[in-house]
């Protein structure tokens, strides 16, 4: 035991000298860039005769050589020996340590017959960088660690991990590296200007002031907007779960704050073009601000409408415009169905905005003027009541225009 402690002390002294020498070579990342953060986890396999101190020495040796080989990686040691070294557990441990990658070394055998299982995973690109076995059979003791370059391990690490782009930070603020893993081309808002865009490897990084909570909005054409609130206190990797926009959506709405409607839309170009079948019933309506709370008319509108979203790129708030035609059905609960005699057809235009509330749900509000075609315009006007025509209603021969109509509701992607 004493011998082991002595050798450990000697190795630490040698490693310290090498680390300082390696640190002297580190001129730091260029402006606007930051080093990758690699979590190093060295564990002992069940059949190993190595002691805990030996594992620690082994870990420091590898750390030292990696740091010596590249200044583009900052090695972060695991605070303890994790019980679970599965890929998922290591990924979580890396995130918890503010690292964007991990290097796992599983040691088995003895100093004279050492075998290492080495793996490294890049959380940003979600790719396995290395999965190799390393053997050392000529060593006598831990002292041999001092001269071990670990080339099989260091070269792949240094070759893969490079500086990532950052932005300037507020004067005096403490910065941390926030790395976003997303589908290549994804635009990420919420981390300052300009917006981040995930590169071809699917990563985007930026040094951000910490500690602070950030709300990210990730958008990619054809995909739902992903919103996520994260707290950043140190270097951290966040992987975004992005899903393609569904071709189908269901919405529930109120027209003119009173009448319920349901719509089913299909999109040949998800997120860009939509075709919707919408049914609005006037059988039961809520009349706020009037003497009677509920109103009812045995009429149901069935509309077929199509339109586009602008811009095509998804945003937290997007505008859209649609045009449609509707038929008005009398007494929809009776058979046979018949078209409304006052105005059987209408043309509707819609200009609206859609606010993404979640990945699949959104709130929408649209201005929806309509032109009601009629063979009996005076009857259509009289049907609005004995008073003056309500605000927004205009009548010409053959057409009644409702220029003050709105619809609000929620839309869910199916």
């Amino acid at each position, binding site marked *: 035991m004493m011998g082991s402690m002595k050798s450990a002390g000697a190795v630490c002294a040698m490693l310290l000298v090498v680390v300082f020498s390696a640190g002297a070579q580190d001129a730091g990342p260029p402006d606007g860039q930051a080093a990758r953060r690699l979590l190093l986890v060295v564990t002992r396999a069940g059949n190993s005769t190595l002691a805990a101190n030996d594992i620690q020495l082994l870990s420091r040796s590898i750390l030292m050589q990696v740091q010596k080989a590249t200044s583009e990686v900052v090695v972060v040691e695991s605070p303890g020996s994790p019980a679970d070294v599965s890929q998922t557990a290591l990924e979580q441990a890396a995130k918890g340590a503010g690292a964007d990658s991990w290097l796992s070394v599983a040691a088995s055998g003895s100093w004279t017959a050492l075998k290492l299982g080495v793996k490294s995973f890049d959380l940003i690109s979600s790719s396995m960088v290395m999965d190799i076995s390393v053997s050392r059979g000529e060593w006598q003791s831990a002292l041999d660690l001092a001269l071990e370059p670990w080339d099989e391990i260091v070269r792949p690490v240094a070759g893969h991990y490079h500086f990532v782009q950052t932005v300037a930070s507020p004067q005096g603020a403490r910065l941390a590296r926030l790395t976003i893993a997303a589908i290549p081309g994804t635009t990420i808002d919420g981390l300052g200007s300009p917006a981040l865009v995930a590169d071809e490897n699917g990563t985007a990084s930026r040094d951000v002031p910490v500690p602070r909570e950030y709300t990210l909005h990730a958008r990619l054409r054809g995909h739902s907007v992903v919103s996520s609130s994260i707290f950043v206190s140190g270097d951290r990797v966040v992987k975004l779960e992005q899903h393609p926009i569904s071709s189908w959506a269901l919405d529930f709405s109120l027209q003119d704050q009173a009448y319920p409607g349901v719509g089913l839309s299909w999109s040949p170009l998800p997120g860009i073009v939509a075709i919707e079948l919408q049914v609005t019933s006037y059988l039961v309506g809520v009349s706020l601000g009037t003497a009677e709370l509920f109103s009812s008319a045995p009429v149901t509108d069935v509309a077929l409408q199509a339109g586009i979203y602008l811009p095509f790129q998804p945003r937290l708030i997007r505008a859209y415009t649609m045009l449609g035609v509707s038929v008005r059905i009398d007494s929809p609960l009776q058979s046979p169905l018949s078209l409304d005699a006052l105005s059987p057809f209408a043309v509707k235009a819609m200009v609206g905005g859609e606010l993404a509330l979640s990945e699949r749900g959104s709130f929408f509000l649209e201005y929806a003027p309509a032109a009601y075609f009629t063979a009996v315009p005076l009857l259509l006007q*009289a049907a609005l009541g004995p008073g003056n*025509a309500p605000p927004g209603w205009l009548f010409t021969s053959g057409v009644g225009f409702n220029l*003050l109509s709105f619809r609000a509701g929620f839309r869910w992607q199916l």
Partner: protein
Amino acid sequence: MKRDLFLLAAAAFLVSCSPVPYDAGLTESARTVAKLTQDTPSPVSVDLFTDSIETIVGFYPRLTTTGFDYGTGFVVSENGAQTIVRAVSLDPSSGILRDYGFSSVSIPNQAPPMPSWVAWPTKDTPAFNAWLSIQTFDSLDPVANDTFAQFEVQAGSPPTFLFPGISSPSHLIQTQTGFSGLLMGASFDADTSGAQDNEFWLVRQTAGPGFVEFQSPASSAGIILSSLRSSGYPYALSFIPPGSTQVQYFYDENQAGDPARHPNASFALWQDGGHWVCYRWAEDPPNSGVYPFVQIPIDHRIDAMLSTGQLFSTEGGTGRLYDRDGALLATFALGNLQFLSEEYVGGQARMYFSQLLSYNQQVHFNVYWIPTASLATLGN
């Protein structure tokens, strides 16, 4: 941004309270209106001098030899207890027909749904001095000296109430005017071949075996009571329940050149157990002592005997056209269309309807027509 969106949504909700363009009566009528010819150049605006809550039923404009004159007429309304007929005439300054608070007659309503007024179809020969006449009479539970009034719209302003029953006893249809009975129903036949029309009455005898028919010529001078006579043979119509107090009556006078309408036929309807029943009888064969009568399958209130020999019902806002055998020829929605009368204009028999349109805080009427011969096409 979220706050802005919220404010926008709130503003939209505050201003957006648009009603649904729907009215049951108008909607039901719209399909029929689209097939009718609008007679009024534009809707006629009417302003009534009343404080009571009334349901306006119809507008009867003045009839001329070339059609209706919308500068004067009658407005018929109901307030639950009474049917009120008001004479209205044009206020040149406003272009609105007004009643000025006078020239009105109220007829007490009794058990509905019996109509308490009928329109008198007239022909348009100039010699006849075309006019539209409305008779109102309390046929619901008649007693001696019941109100009976005949109103006519003639040239002049305001229109005149001719022969109001109370003030002109000579024109009352009462026991002292030629028959011993109570007027139950009246029917008019526009005789286009003569200078006079014929009016037929169904009378419940006060001292006899039941119901009998009378007839009298009528002209622009009114009903010629001096020519009052029994219609056909004065046999009692024993098939009409003797105690009936609500009976509708129509008479189809023989039309030359129309063999299908031989012989002349009379029709009477009353309610039996809440359902309308209709009987038809004829004068022929003469001298039999018994009228050949038959129940025909009409189970709705009849409002007019048409020049085509067809019977027309508007009960429940639905137009129903029957032939003289009671076969249903056509059904169509009327909604709030009010049947006015059948009139001859330009030698053509037309069915006239008025429709109440309330908008812009004003009561308006539109009047529509369709040739009587085409009435059945409304059911297509």
